[in-house]
């Protein structure tokens, strides 16, 4: 399908190797604020999830402090993720070709990417992660407010709070699982992490993993000067 999956910051720097801009500074800062808050939330949340992990509250200065910080970090994560959502929702809209890509699940897992249809800026697994994260974060903020007794005790009844706390823990578990997949995929597909550190990837990476995105960029002549000097 001809839907464009390129963002305005994306650009090709011709050279040897080719370098492709993927995330501008704003996107990267936004991502890492989200990432750090998510890790802090997971650590403090897991401390309340099971007694064997209660010691994690020590990272926050104690149980009272972890209990007090956790919801505020959640608010930060919510707004920070909202920023990512606004940046990337268009590029994550499902496309017809996603179905075919997913039909080759075996090749995805085996890393035989040459057998897959060419992916745009995001492949279907990335899209799934994006939408799952979005929905789970909405579920977490809603159920989180319902159990933020310090400020919102009056807003819900006790039976509602019980359901909220159960859903909050289930949603958190699901989100942590998706986060594990996300982190693993970044490590597995070598050369991915630099997209969120330096903001760019190599042309080979784009050719291998997001060929349609690279082709679209080339097609639209999204070129920018020579490649940034090698570091």
């Amino acid at each position: 399908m001809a839907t464009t999956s390129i963002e305005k910051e994306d650009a090709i720097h011709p050279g040897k190797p080719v370098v492709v801009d993927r995330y501008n500074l704003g996107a990267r800062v936004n991502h890492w604020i989200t990432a750090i808050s998510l890790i802090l939330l997971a650590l403090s949340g897991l401390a309340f999830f099971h007694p064997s992990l209660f010691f994690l509250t020590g990272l926050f200065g104690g149980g009272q402090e972890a209990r007090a910080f956790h919801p505020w970090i959640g608010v930060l994560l919510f707004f920070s993720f909202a920023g990512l959502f606004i940046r990337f929702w268009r590029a994550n809209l499902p496309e017809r070709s996603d179905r075919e890509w997913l039909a080759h699940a075996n090749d995805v897992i085996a890393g035989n990417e040459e057998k897959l249809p060419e992916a745009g800026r995001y492949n279907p697994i990335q899209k799934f992660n994006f939408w799952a994260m979005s929905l789970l974060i909405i579920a977490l903020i809603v159920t989180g407010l319902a159990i933020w007794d310090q400020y919102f005790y009056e807003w819900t009844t006790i039976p509602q709070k019980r359901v909220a706390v159960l859903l909050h823990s289930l949603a958190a578990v699901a989100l942590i699982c998706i986060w594990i997949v996300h982190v693993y995929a970044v490590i597995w597909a070598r050369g991915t992490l630099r997209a969120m550190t330096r903001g760019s990837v190599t042309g080979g990476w784009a050719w291998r993993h997001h060929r349609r995105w690279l082709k679209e960029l080339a097609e639209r002549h999204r070129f920018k000067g020579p490649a940034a000097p090698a570091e």
Partner: protein
Amino acid sequence: MEPSPHTATSNPPVSAATSNLTERDLVRRSASTVPPPARQLEPVAKLIDVSKCIGCKACQSACVEWNDTNPAVETNTGIYENPHDLTPDMFTLMRFTEWDNPQTGNLEWLIRKDGCMHCEDPGCLKACPAPGAIVQYSNGIVDFIHENCIGCGYCIKGCPFNIPRISKVDHTAYKCTLCSDRVAVGQGPACAKACPTHAISFGTKEDMKKLASSRIEDLKSRGYENAGLYDPPGVGGTHVMYVLHHNDQPEIYSGLPKDPKVSPVVNAWKGMTKYIGFAAMGLAAAAGVLHSALTGPNRVTREDEEKAEDLVKEKA
């Protein structure tokens, strides 16, 4: 023979007494395990005979006095309840209901002293994530240990009776302690001592049950055929029990639950969810490790770079 109510009617000795209720008497400790206690204390209970209560609130005053709390002065909204709910500074509350008895046509004034029921199977303790913030002694008393409390409010969700309240001042949970500090030195709870009609008695649970049955017999002989003891089995029985003239419908006493139990939602949250959660997170991590071991890293090849360079050369 009338069983002894055990409520201290005389003044306590003035010499210092050592506490007979210590950490070694714990049978449950929140978010942790305790070694089985070396001794088993006699289970105690407070018996509240609703039919003898005159609603004087001496128990509330005694509770405030002994626990040194300072409930806020509220406004009169036309009902007798004061304060209008349990608060972090008011551990017990007389709840008043005007009930129109459909059988007799009489207006009955039902007064129930609300507060922690000291469940044998305490939902608050089950829900609590903070090690040692809620404990249960072998005599049945469920107590909050404030220095371990983190103020999360999980106890509120665990409690089937809507009892714990979180203080906005020190962010810890408060409720009736059954005067564990008094019981520890052989005294009865302050409310029981202050009650002018002996509607509140304290003693061993067995004695309190005997006392209750004599009261129930008396009430039945006076026409309250449904009089009975409220010691709900859904929470394993309680260490605060009521004699109710209408034990067939406890809800009429300001919503006393008919068959309280720890909510299945709380049980799911505190039980299954933990196993599912750890299993899911473990599987996700294990899948990563396994995948990595089987397929190795997915590296960009020299050929990929060349293809990209060709593409760019062609289009640029």
